[in-house]
């Protein structure tokens, strides 16, 4: 009967049971592909290199920072950074805190939620430093780490690993890829953060993170941790594809999809061959 209808070409396969799945797969790949192209384009952030210390120490920066603060931050933090119902006081948080929050794009906050997310920075590095200079002028607080503090060249990698596992891994995971916390909060991945931002996070304890001041981890220990995190960012993978380094969950998922999937297909192929 089917022959009588005179079917040719693709319509021969139109009613094949696999068609639905193939079409869905193609659709998903196209959608996902377009989305990821768009997402990478949006994530590209321009970097400008200005001498941080020069800006921070320039008295004019405080005024410039104050003006930026009044337009961008005061709505929530109050005109004099004293805090309001929507945002905490910033008096005493220090330049390091401002620099961390603004340079990682967490501030200004897009929307209140369980946790403020890393985002595209809204200010240039120069503006960020001006904001930091203004807030630091209100009351002393943790300062932006100096080049000397960030110089981990002499640090011990193995010690850094040990300190990382003892102090950081329970939230950020052994691989620094981050992990979930309670009620929608999370420890973010460290793979996107610069050493400067990680140092600032350690001394200011943003959001759910505890503060690791110099009594808890001294400067050399912090440098060792930075060295280990930098190693984690581009350590070689002797075992092959790393599957995101999220542990056994992704390994199990991979086995149940690719592994069992491939062998099932082989079994079906051998079965069909037999006929």
């Amino acid at each position, binding site marked *: *009967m089917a022959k009588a209808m005179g079917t040719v070409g693709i319509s021969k396969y139109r009613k094949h049971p696999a068609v639905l799945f193939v079409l869905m797969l193609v659709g998903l790949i196209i959608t996902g592909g377009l989305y990821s192209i768009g997402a990478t384009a949006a994530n590209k952030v321009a970097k400008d290199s200005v001498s941080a210390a020069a800006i921070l120490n320039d008295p004019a920066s405080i005024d410039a920072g104050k003006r930026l603060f009044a337009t961008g931050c005061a709505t929530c933090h109050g005109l004099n950074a004293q805090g309001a119902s929507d945002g905490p006081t910033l008096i005493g948080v220090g330049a390091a805190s401002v620099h961390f929050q603004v340079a990682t794009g967490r501030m200004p906050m897009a929307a209140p939620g369980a946790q403020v997310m890393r985002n595209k920075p809204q200010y240039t590095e120069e503006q960020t430093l001006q904001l930091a200079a203004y807030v630091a002028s209100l009351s002393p607080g943790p300062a932006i780490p100096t080049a000397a503090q960030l110089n981990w060249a002499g640090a011990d990698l193995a010690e850094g690993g040990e300190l990382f596992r003892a102090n950081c891994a329970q939230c950020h995971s052994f691989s620094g890829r981050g992990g979930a916390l309670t009620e929608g909060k999370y420890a973010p991945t460290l793979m996107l953060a610069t050493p400067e931002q990680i140092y600032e996070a350690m001394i200011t304890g943003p959001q759910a993170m505890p503060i690791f001041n110099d009594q808890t981890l001294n400067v050399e220990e912090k440098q060792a941790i930075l060295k280990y995190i930098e190693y984690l960012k581009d350590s070689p993978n002797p075992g092959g594809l790393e599957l995101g380094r999220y542990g056994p969950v992704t390994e199990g998922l991979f086995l149940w999809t690719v592994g069992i999937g491939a062998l099932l297909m082989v079994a079906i192929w051998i079965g069909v061959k037999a006929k």
Partner: protein
Amino acid sequence: MSTEITRGPVDKSIDGGIKYLDERYGTSGFIKRNIKKVFPDHWSFMLGEIALYSFIILLLSGVYLTFFYKPSLIEIVYDGSYLPLKGIKMSEAYASTLEISFDVRGGLLMRQVHHWGALLFVAAITVHLLRVFFTGAFRKPRELNWVIGVGLLVLAIFEGFSGYSLPDDLLSGTGIRIASGIALAIPVIGTYVSFLVFGGEFPGLDFMSRLYTLHVLIIPGIMLALITAHLMLVWFQKHTQYPGPGRTNNNVVGYPLMPAYMAKAGGFFFIVFGFLVLLAGLVTINPLWAYGPYMPDQVTAGSQPDWYIGWLDGGTRIMPNWEIVIAGIGTLSLNILIPAVVVPGIMFTLLALYPWIEQWITGDNRAHHILERPRNNPNRTGIGVMSLTFYGLLWIAGGNDIIAQMLDLSINDMTRLIRVAIFVAPPLAFVITKRICLSLQHSDKERLLHGDPTGRLLRLPSGEFIEVHEPLSDNVKAVLLARTELPMLQPPAEVDQSGVKTPKLWAKKLQHRLNRWWYVDQIPMPTIAELEAAKHHAVHELQEAQALGLEITHDLPEPTKSH
């Protein structure tokens, strides 16, 4: 038909070999009898083979690893070639796994073959078990082999977990810590059990060598014996087959072992082997160097067991923190005891006993060699999907932190949701599956009576519209007609003829009630009269079509013979 039919012709190409053996050992009869044994053919019969081949690969790669691994918890300072751990104190066990990974030639590949192989082994067992379950292959006379299979699954899980624990990295040490916690949660004897296993307070120095002996000797030894028994029973009881033309409960339709299956099985072994080596060469599994050595005061986010323990971990994660403190005696840790001991205990017991449970409900005492299509036993299929839903939810709970992180969810919301879903979703899955099965039975009956609709509508001279149906092929018809119906059990008599009360009346009443529930909404098979009437209708339909000058490519159906 007799069992003689299960022997096919001996292939000419192997005559020489048989002759050689026969002249020396007089085994010709034995070999000839077995070499031409007929096995039915279907791709789903090869799922168990994947498990078997993974096991062989695990033995081979495992032996290589034993040459270099040291099951010792003696603390040493690492001085190998992995720089980020140089100078760090660790156990000899961990140092030797690092050595295997970085300093032994082919060591990392072997370790990854072994670990991927372990994941594949348990997964293949699971898929094989599902095939056996959903097609009713466990029914009489194969109940014992089902129990052996369940035993192998449990052993494989223990074997996998003991292997996961051997490297003594931060991840596996955390797993051992949890295992010791589970042992401690057992009422009354828990502390003794834990002390016995660990040779004192956790972690101690003894358990690694004990675990090693279990992992490389005792468990694989028992598994090897059980696998042999499992295969011999398949051989002795013959393999089940799917329904089809010429296939009955008394024959086996297929090909002889030699050469067809020897070639296929041999080829498939090398495909599985090659695939595992490819996987191990391309994809990291358990980058244990990155976890660092186990320290009781450290833990990493995303600490998870391998997938086959995931559901137990999940149960523990969604269990409310219930404890009963009995003054002066101790604490009853329901928070661990229920998800890690009671639930798996019940699940595996039900799994092992399932053939007898179903037999008791259906009252079906017949031997079955023809497999049942899942739709033809809606309750069994429903129970299977229900169990899978339960398992899947616990699986999700076991990976809740990773899922929450990936999908921007709250772990607490997930826990609350799964706590409700674990009671609601499985029964729902049962009802939906059962309804789908019954609908499929309906559709099968329709097809038997009317054939397949072609989508061609005819308008007859009288003005009536009819759709032309294509008769089913003999293959399809044989499959659809293979469903057998069993009469429902009669209600038990309160007293027998002599007026003696029936013993265990409550049990018989329960059986009767379950039996009614099992069969009550089954779609009855078409009767011979119905089939005959349908055939007349089809002939009439085609004649009308031909009268209108329509080109008909298929033959007119012949009058029905009895089925």
